[in-house]
């Protein structure tokens, strides 16, 4: 009796990995999903934080995809291991701090390890030739196979007919003729296929599924590294970069100011780690100070936060400063005028 073959699908939560897994399921292959959490994933974080848009259902797209396919999903925390990919990408960064090619190699390598540990036969991804400028090019896709160690066990069902036959195709585990030959950045064939399979409400995040592809986010991360004197970060650091307005009035400290109530609530969770500022005399945003500051710096930070409060036009605004230890005191400051805030402060 022929053994049923098993494939592990890299599930990002987007449409392409959903379709790739479905195409392989249709060939009678047992599919399980794997999803990697790097800390930079655009996955509900900001939606969960902000009050705005609370009426929209919050979901993890990878879990939603797994439910649509009826497959198990293993979500793997790779936050620590992933740091080396971000710090020292062998193939460099893309337009921002996105190490896309190294990232894909790393994820396929991890999926390959998982395959061997769990007695699975091959790996599938939703990659399409020519869709991404770094990791999904005709010349870099073979590199992913080679450098990850997966070699010909990596099958891309949406683009397979543009690529050399893989082991699952050569061995007849899957029928190459039933795989696709998509290429390029167009989405029409994928959307048509989704319709054919009866999938709707699928996620199509603009700019991909990683904050590192975002210019503003990358600029804040670069600032963090510069301020600390080395490429380092912890999960809290990279989460905070997703929230609030970040302004650096001096090289040794920055102020993170909530833009709305939900962000304020989120930032309040960090009161025991950072010096914080709250408005007392007027309604205003909650803020954190990141850095070692003196009294003058605190006053400057409070004046800056006051500028974003309802007392921005008042002669004086009373603010509360709270230390991580929980002791607080009030200070009165004059809100900074917009002209007194240099553009380069805003990260």
């Amino acid at each position: 009796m022929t053994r049923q073959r098993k494939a592990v699908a890299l599930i990002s939560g987007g449409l392409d990995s959903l379709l790739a897994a479905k195409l392989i399921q249709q060939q009678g292959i047992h599919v399980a999903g794997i999803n990697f959490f790097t800390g930079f994933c655009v996955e509900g974080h900001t939606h969960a934080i902000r009050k705005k848009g609370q009426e929209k259902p919050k979901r993890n797209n990878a879990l939603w995809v797994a439910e649509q396919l009826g497959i198990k999903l293993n979500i793997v925390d790779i936050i620590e291991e992933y740091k080396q990919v971000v710090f020292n990408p062998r193939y460099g960064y893309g337009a921002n701090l996105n190490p896309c090619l190294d990232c894909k190699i790393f994820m396929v390598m991890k999926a390959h390890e998982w395959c061997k540990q769990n007695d699975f036969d091959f790996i599938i991804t939703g990659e399409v030739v020519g869709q991404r400028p770094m990791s999904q090019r005709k010349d870099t896709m073979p590199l992913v196979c080679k450098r990850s160690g997966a070699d010909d066990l990596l099958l891309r069902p949406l683009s397979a007919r543009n690529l050399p036959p893989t082991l699952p195709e050569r061995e007849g585990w899957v029928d190459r003729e039933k795989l696709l030959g998509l290429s390029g950045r167009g989405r029409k064939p994928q959307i048509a296929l989704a319709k054919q399979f009866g999938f709707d409400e699928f996620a199509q995040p603009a700019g991909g599924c990683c904050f590192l592809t975002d210019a503003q986010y990358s600029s804040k991360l670069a600032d963090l590294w510069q301020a600390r004197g080395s490429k380092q970060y912890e999960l809290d650091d990279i989460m905070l970069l997703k929230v609030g307005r970040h302004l650096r009035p001096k090289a040794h400290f920055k102020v993170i100011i909530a833009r709305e109530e939900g962000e304020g609530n989120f930032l309040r969770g960090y009161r025991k780690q950072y010096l914080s500022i709250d408005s007392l005399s007027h309604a205003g945003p909650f803020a954190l100070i990141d850095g070692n500051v003196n009294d003058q710096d605190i006053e400057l930070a409070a004046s800056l936060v006051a500028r974003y409060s309802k007392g921005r036009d008042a002669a004086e605004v009373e603010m509360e400063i709270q230390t991580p230890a929980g002791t607080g005191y009030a200070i009165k400051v004059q809100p900074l005028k917009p002209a007194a805030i240099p553009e380069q402060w805003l990260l």
Partner: protein
Amino acid sequence: MAVVNPVIVDARRLLCPMPVIRVQNSVAELCPGTLVEVLCTDPGALNDIPSWCRINGHRVVETRCLNDEYLVILEVGEE
């Protein structure tokens, strides 16, 4: 019959998908039938943890809002 205390998973202040990962890693070590109480502050966990349970064969016993926190109680499935 001995009453077994539920296993507590504290996922407060963690954002999606970390609460799910905490639950997943905890459940991997537990026997079928064990109750797990998950405390969260990310409202998205109220969708994500039940979704994870459905695809992995575990049963959600109860979900509850406690002021700004959320409680999900689940029972570990057979597999």
